[in-house]
C-alpha cells in the first residue's frame, strides 16, 4: 500500500535522533514511555497538610493553596481562555475544596482531586459563555481533518530557534485554536499530567472518549506547530 504520508521533505539525521537520544539513525523509536503520573509533583508532607486542613487548620489549607495556585490558574486559564473566568474558577475551586475537604478520600492525590474540582468550575463557565459551542457529549467528527497530508522536516531541537517568550506565545496560540472539547482533554492529560482514567473521571466521560480526543488534539497541535518548526518556518 502506498504511504499515506505523502511528502517527506529533506530528512535530516539530527531529527531522527531527536528525543530518542543519540541512537543510530536507522533505529526505530525508543520504547515508548508511559505517561508521567501526577505523583511526581507530590511532596511528602502533603498528607499531613491535608489532615491538618481537614481538622480546621486554615494555615495548613493556605499552604496547600500556595503550592497549587499557579497550576490551578494555568489549568482554568487553559480551559476557559478568559482571564476573568479563570480567576473566578480558581477562587471557587479552592473554596469548594475547602468546604468539601471532609469528604476527600485520601486514596487519591489531593492535587488530582483539586484539579477535578477546578476543571469542572472552568468547564461550567466555558459552557455559560459558549452555550451552543461546547459539549463533551457531542460525537467527534470524522478523522479526515487530522490525517497529515505532508510531513516536513523540523530539524534538530526546533524549539531552540525561538526565545522562551516566543515559544510560550506559539504554544499558547496553538492550544487556543483547539476546539474546547479537545482542549480540555489535552490540558488535563498532556499539560497537567493526569492519567487517562483520572481525566475520564474528572470530565465524566469514557476512557475511550479521552483517548480519541487526545489523539485528535495531539495531531492538530502537531499540525499547528509545523508552521513554526519546519525548516525555514515562520520565524
Amino acid at each position, binding site marked *: *500500500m502506498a*504511504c*499515506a*504520508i*505523502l511528502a*517527506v521533505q529533506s*530528512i535530516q539525521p539530527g531529527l*531522527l535522533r*531527536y*528525543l530518542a537520544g543519540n541512537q543510530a539513525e*536507522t533505529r*526505530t*523509536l525508543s*520504547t*515508548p*514511555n*508511559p*505517561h508521567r503520573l501526577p505523583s511526581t509533583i507530590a511532596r511528602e508532607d502533603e498528607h499531613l497538610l491535608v489532615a491538618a486542613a481537614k481538622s480546621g487548620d*486554615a494555615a495548613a*489549607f*493556605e499552604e496547600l*493553596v500556595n503550592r497549587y*495556585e*499557579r497550576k490551578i*490558574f*494555568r489549568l482554568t*486559564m*487553559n480551559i476557559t481562555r478568559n*482571564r476573568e473566568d479563570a*480567576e473566578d474558577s480558581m*477562587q471557587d475551586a*479552592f*473554596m469548594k475544596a*475547602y*468546604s468539601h475537604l471532609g469528604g476527600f478520600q485520601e486514596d487519591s492525590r489531593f492535587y488530582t482531586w483539586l484539579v477535578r474540582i477546578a476543571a469542572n468550575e472552568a468547564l461550567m463557565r466555558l459552557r455559560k459563555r459558549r452555550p451552543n459551542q461546547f459539549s463533551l457529549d457531542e460525537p467527534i467528527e470524522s478523522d479526515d481533518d487530522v*490525517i*497529515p497530508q505532508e*510531513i516536513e*522536516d523540523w530539524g534538530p531541537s*526546533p*524549539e531552540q530557534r525561538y526565545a522562551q517568550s516566543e515559544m*510560550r506565545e506559539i*504554544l*499558547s496560540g496553538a*492550544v487556543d485554536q483547539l476546539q474546547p472539547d479537545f482542549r480540555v482533554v*489535552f490540558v488535563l492529560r*498532556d*499539560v*497537567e*499530567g493526569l492519567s*487517562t482514567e483520572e481525566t475520564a473521571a474528572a470530565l465524566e466521560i469514557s476512557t475511550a472518549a479521552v*483517548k480519541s480526543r*487526545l*489523539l485528535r488534539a*495531539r*495531531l492538530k*497541535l*502537531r499540525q499547528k*506547530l*509545523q508552521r513554526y518548526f519546519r525548516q525555514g518556518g515562520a520565524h
Partner: protein
Amino acid sequence: MNCDGVIRSVSSYIDGELGVAVREEFEVHLKGCKGCTIFVQQTQFTVKIFYNADLADLPAEARSRLHETLRRRIGESRK
C-alpha cells in the same frame, strides 16, 4: 500495519498503551517508512513540549485577590 494504522495508534504508542504484538507491528512499519518515523517523532515532540508548559502566569494581583477572598469566605463560613 500501514501508515493509516500508525496515525491512528500514535497516541497510544507514545503513552505505552499498545499491546506487545501491535507495538511490534507499529515499529516494523516505522523501520520501512521514513515519513511515519518523522511523523511519530514530531508527535512525541509535541507531547513533550507541552508537558507542564507555563502557558499562563498567575498575576500578582489575582493571587492577592484569591487569598483575600479565601480568608473572607472561610471566615464567613466559620461564623
